[in-house]
């Protein structure tokens, strides 16, 4: 079982790296791109004996306490078999 964790900057927080990437994307000629936001993606492998509910709860705790800084970031957890 695997937990996929997506960490993104809160919409209110400026993302200078995303802006720089957006600029480079425009230089490539993709002028129709409105915005780029950069985030982080984590894959956490869990013991297959763990229930999906427990896996989600564990991954949520890890995301909240370590992977994301709740002051500036949001997170989303997905469980896949």
């Amino acid at each position, binding site marked *: 079982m695997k937990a996929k964790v997506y960490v993104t*900057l809160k919409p209110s927080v*400026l993302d*200078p*790296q995303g802006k*720089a990437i957006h600029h480079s994307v425009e230089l490539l000629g993709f002028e129709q791109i409105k915005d780029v936001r950069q985030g982080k993606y984590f894959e956490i492998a869990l013991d297959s004996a763990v229930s999906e509910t427990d896996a989600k709860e564990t991954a949520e705790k890890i995301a909240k306490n*370590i*992977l994301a*800084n709740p*002051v500036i970031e949001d997170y989303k957890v997905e469980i896949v078999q």
Partner: protein
Amino acid sequence: MVFGFRSLVFECKSKLYFHSLSKTKNQGPKTKCEAFMKFGVVVFPGSNCDHDAYHVVSKHVGQPVDFIWHKQTDLSGYDALIVPGGFSYGDYLRAGALAKFSPVMKAVKDFAASGKFVFGVCNGFQILCEAGLLPGALIRNSGLHFVCRHINIRVENENSPYTSELEKGEVLSIPIAHAEGNYVCDDQTLAELENNNQIIFRYCDETGETTDEANPNGSRSNIAGICNKEGNVLGMMPHPERACEELLGSNDGRDIFRSLTNAISISEK
């Protein structure tokens, strides 16, 4: 014991040297030679300004100082801790994010809760924010570059334990060296910081104006340094420990350390 006496004399001489070279605008209480205080510099894997901090405390502040490896959990006997700059844990995940899980941090939190002084510089500021000892967070500089140069900061609150030897509005020349010094917080936190006089330093130009141009990293409200509500925990991105000798371009940082030693001296009475 002979060695102890000799080092005592040396430390007193260092202190006199320190005071003799410091500005004497504020005739507040001076630290007495007999009032020794012990500093600790917390060292994480990847800290790289630990020796700078140690040098300033031992040579200019003239007080005993130890390096404290991040696995240490007993901080008894210390009066003040410096959480130095650098790249703890290689800045992996986020700057300061992994250091907060080091064994020493639980002791640092207890130390701060007891009212003792915790002074975070650069990566130390990032760690204190990540650990929840200071509000807000430090993200990538708005200009994306690593910025390494002398900048000016203005003293916003002269009544903190770290600025008692300075005057409100005074402009200090202190170097910065960081890529993640862009201070962010929500509106409510900013209002609290302002209402509680927790903003200690703001980036400014040479005349003391807090302009956008003088803001090197995009920090909200030009914030360069803040303290907690109680005032005993300070975090700042500029490096005062690199501004204690004329040879290095500025000695404006010494008044911050002098303020701190006075605050410790007063707190022990």
